[in-house]
């Protein structure tokens, strides 16, 4: 339908116009607030030399983002390595569930940033601290969704495993994981989204390098246009991360391969 295709392009552009209008009005009212055109031209400045490195505290935008992403993926990977086995365990064993559940319930609502000072004290180093904070951020959705996946394995499949006398190991790999994997990926997708939120705040606190630090640094430099550029870039990258995770999740979901 041509009508629809045009709308998909037109409607967001229309809204963009409205937003730029409101933004220009705000910029007019608040002295020093960067105008859309200032941000637009600044964007090319920032993106034209993304890889420059003048030592700590003054690096190109790509290096800042790269550092943040590396920390996110570091903490995220450790969270998967720890969270999936723990989730499998508490999903499969009632005793493990009973033992773990109270602590998961209590620790889950704690903002990961509350761990930051403690981590900084222990590690005495910014990078490890940030990775640790991301680990704490990511682990809960992964554990909870993995356990949920395990518990959603139907009794029938488990009976098949029992009749065939599968070993616990075979049961995990042949029956439980195929069912649980889509749930695990849902958890991972949630985790990655929150991790990307948290890293900005964590880096504002730790300083050094990273997109969160960069934004805060530009605030101190009174360079407000860069803050808006930071916001836009964080949004775009977050969107890409989520989309890619979604594609990977679909790839591993047997239900999404025309097999239902």
């Amino acid at each position, binding site marked *: 339908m041509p009508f629809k295709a045009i709308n998909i392009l037109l409607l967001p552009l229309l809204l963009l116009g409205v937003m730029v209008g409101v933004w220009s009005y705000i910029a007019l009212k608040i002295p020093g607030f960067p105008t859309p055109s200032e941000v637009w031209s600044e964007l090319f400045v920032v993106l034209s030399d993304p890889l420059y490195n003048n030592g700590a505290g003054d690096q190109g935008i790509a290096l800042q983002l790269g550092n943040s992403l590396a920390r996110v993926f570091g903490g995220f990977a450790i969270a998967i390595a720890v969270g999936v086995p723990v989730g499998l365990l508490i999903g499969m064993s009632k005793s493990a569930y009973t033992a773990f559940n109270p602590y998961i319930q209590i620790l889950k609502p704690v903002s990961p940033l509350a761990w930051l000072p403690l981590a900084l004290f222990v590690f005495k180093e910014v990078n490890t601290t940030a990775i640790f904070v991301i680990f704490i951020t990511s682990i809960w959705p992964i554990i909870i969704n993995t356990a949920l996946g395990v518990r959603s394995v139907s009794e029938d499949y488990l*009976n098949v495993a029992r009749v065939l*006398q599968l070993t616990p190991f075979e049961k995990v790999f*042949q029956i439980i994981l195929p069912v649980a994997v889509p749930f695990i990926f849902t958890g991972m997708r949630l985790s990655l989204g929150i991790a990307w939120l948290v890293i900005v705040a964590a880096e504002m606190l730790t300083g050094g390098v990273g997109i969160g630090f960069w934004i805060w640094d530009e605030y101190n430099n009174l360079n407000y246009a860069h803050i808006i550029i930071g916001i836009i870039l964080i949004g775009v990258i977050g969107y890409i991360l989520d989309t890619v995770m979604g594609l990977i999740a679909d790839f591993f979901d047997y239900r999404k391969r025309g097999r239902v």
Partner: protein
Amino acid sequence: MSLKTFLKIDHVDKVFPLGGGKEYVALRDVELEIRENEIVSIIGHSGCGKSTILNLIAGLDTISKGTILLENKHILSPGPERAVVFQNHSLLPWLTVYQNIEMAVKKVLGSTLSASEIRDHVMKYISMVNLDHAKDKYPGEISGGMKQRVGIARALSIQPKVLLMDEPFGALDSLTRANLQDHLMRIQMQTGNTVIIITHDVDEAVLLSDRVIMMTNGPEATIGEILDVNLPRPRKRLELQHNEEYLRCREAIIEFLYSKFAKDDE
């Protein structure tokens, strides 16, 4: 057909604990001997404990009192010598038809067969249920009747001593059901399996079975009557339409179910 006892259900009770210290006596003093190569069906009203008996034989549930012996060995846990065809087929949806059967064959017979023998073995059972054309399809891509045939092929492929079927055709339309009944009878003549089949359907019970086990209603359900079906095999459903023995068996079961042990709330 050998007459020695093959499977012996000896004074078996099954009690389910309910909340608050209460309990539900589902089965009381069930006694039954089943011979090798026999097809036996268990019929009874809903909730009388048919699935419970089957689960006890399968070892999927524990016996409260009494014993079940298969070739003089106590049944204490599930095992591949007692294959189960579940009502809802329970195929693994992430595996193809071939892979579903292969997985069972590899686990149970994998140590005795070479890779090519496993392939041949799997294909033999796929052919047995006429599903060669669908071997690479996923369960979600085939009909209910085909799924149930895969379930039967999977159960038979591990060469069980007893094939346990809990209303295997219950969810199917009557044409598909008739087709699968014919499949089952033909395959059983080939393989000589001992089959225990649970059903709600009077015609199915008579058509398939050497003996029909009729159960009383719960609680404390037990075996009410056992009916011998003296019809020669192979049986042809069309020819049985007006067969006297067939009609006698049918009547006996209907009499049992709707007169002696009628259930109002059905």
